[in-house]
């Protein structure tokens, strides 16, 4: 089944295709959900008021993108979008581990010592990758998803341009700024590799043409992109220090994120909001 698949009904007819599609959709949905959640924790705390407007706008839009992928999963009969976002165990989640990482020390309600260098590096790295993955999905075989990817890409360049500007400017700023960015880049280099991967169903995802290029090529393209912006690329290859989120490995930080995110949902799971 490598031709275009027009509907959810059609996708369900081939078990391998269905499973590969499900994995890919959870990756896209969970990545956007987690980075948007971490972004929402910055609300009111960004370095200046224009940035607060910009970052919260990007975050809200990114959360909206996550909703669309959960809706596609709902159409496939996997569960309601609300349930999939709020009520899945850690080992069922497919986001890259680096995206669940806490924003820094402290927490939102009590002394949030968040680190802006982490926000800039993480968002730039992720948005650069999101573009590459969505372009592969936009030319992929599942039409309902390809349509969503095309739409998201129309808005996404505003997000990427924003974070690219931040990392470029801090990269040519004071010694402290450079040092802090470089430190977070080095850290990311040890943790980011699973974000770039498609997980244990990578071969099926590619062979069913759900993406038009494989994970190796995505990774190469991503490295080419960040090379154009980073002052210095760390030595050595990219690592996945805490395992692979694509296969359900996660840290305590994910628990903390989901518990906070789902606090209201958990208070009454059957309420109609």
């Amino acid at each position, binding site marked *: 089944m490598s031709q275009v698949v027009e509907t959810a009904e059609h996708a369900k007819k081939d078990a391998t295709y269905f499973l590969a599609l499900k994995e890919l959709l959870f990756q896209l949905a969970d990545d956007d959900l987690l980075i948007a959640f971490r972004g929402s924790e910055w609300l009111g705390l960004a370095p200046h008021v224009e940035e607060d407007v910009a970052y919260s706008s990007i975050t809200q839009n990114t959360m909206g*993108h996550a909703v669309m992928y959960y809706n596609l999963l709902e159409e496939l009969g996997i569960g309601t979008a609300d349930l999939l976002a709020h009520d899945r165990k850690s080992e069922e989640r497919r986001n890259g581990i680096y995206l669940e990482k806490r924003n820094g020390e402290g927490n939102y309600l009590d002394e949030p010592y968040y680190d802006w260098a982490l926000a800039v590096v993480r968002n730039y790295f992720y948005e650069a990758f999101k573009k590459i993955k969505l372009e592969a999905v936009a030319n992929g075989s599942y039409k309902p998803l390809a349509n969503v990817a095309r739409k998201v890409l129309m808005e996404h360049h505003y997000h990427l*341009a924003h974070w690219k500007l931040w990392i470029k400017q801090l990269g040519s700023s004071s010694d402290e700024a450079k040092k802090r960015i470089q430190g977070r880049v080095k850290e990311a280099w040890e943790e980011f590799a699973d974000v770039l991967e498609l997980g244990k169903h990578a071969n099926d995802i590619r062979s069913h043409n759900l993406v038009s290029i494989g994970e190796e090529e995505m990774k190469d393209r991503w490295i080419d992109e960040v090379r154009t912006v980073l002052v210095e690329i760390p030595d050595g290859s990219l690592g996945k220090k805490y395992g692979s989120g694509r296969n359900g490995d996660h840290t305590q930080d994910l628990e903390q994120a989901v518990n906070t995110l789902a606090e209201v949902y958990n208070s009454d799971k059957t309420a109609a909001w």
Partner: protein
Amino acid sequence: MNEINRLQEINAVLKTVDDPELPSVSVYDLGMVHDVALNENEVEIKMVPTFAGCPALDFIEIKVKRAVEELEWVQLCRVKFTMEHQWSTDAITEKGKEELKKHGIAPPPENYQPGDEWTLNCPYCNSDYTSMENVFGPTACRSILYCSACKNPFEAMKPVVQPLHLK
């Protein structure tokens, strides 16, 4: 009533349903209505979102459904946001552009290419002595600009177009 009259009646209703974030500008004039289909007393409306991540989509869906179901002959109206077609700047009607300006929002620039820097004439005094203050504004689809001629801040709808390599 024949089908053409019925469709006209529905379009007339859609011209009265405002975007919740842009009072006085209808979803019809924003170019969000993609298709209206009739089946006896049932209506199916396909809409396209301006921004996919827009949190107002659910409200818009409900508002459109309720407004159309007010029509006496309509038994059921289904509203569906579709991604099969992509909204673009060109979909805004002339009336929509005028209404946006009255609201202090400049319609998006024409002939925009992704990545271009852009500004627009002031919706109040039409001066081109304006500057971009923040490409991100109060909603996903809007940016914040400033007019140095009449000293007013104003907003603009962000241009969104399909990247050339995906067309």
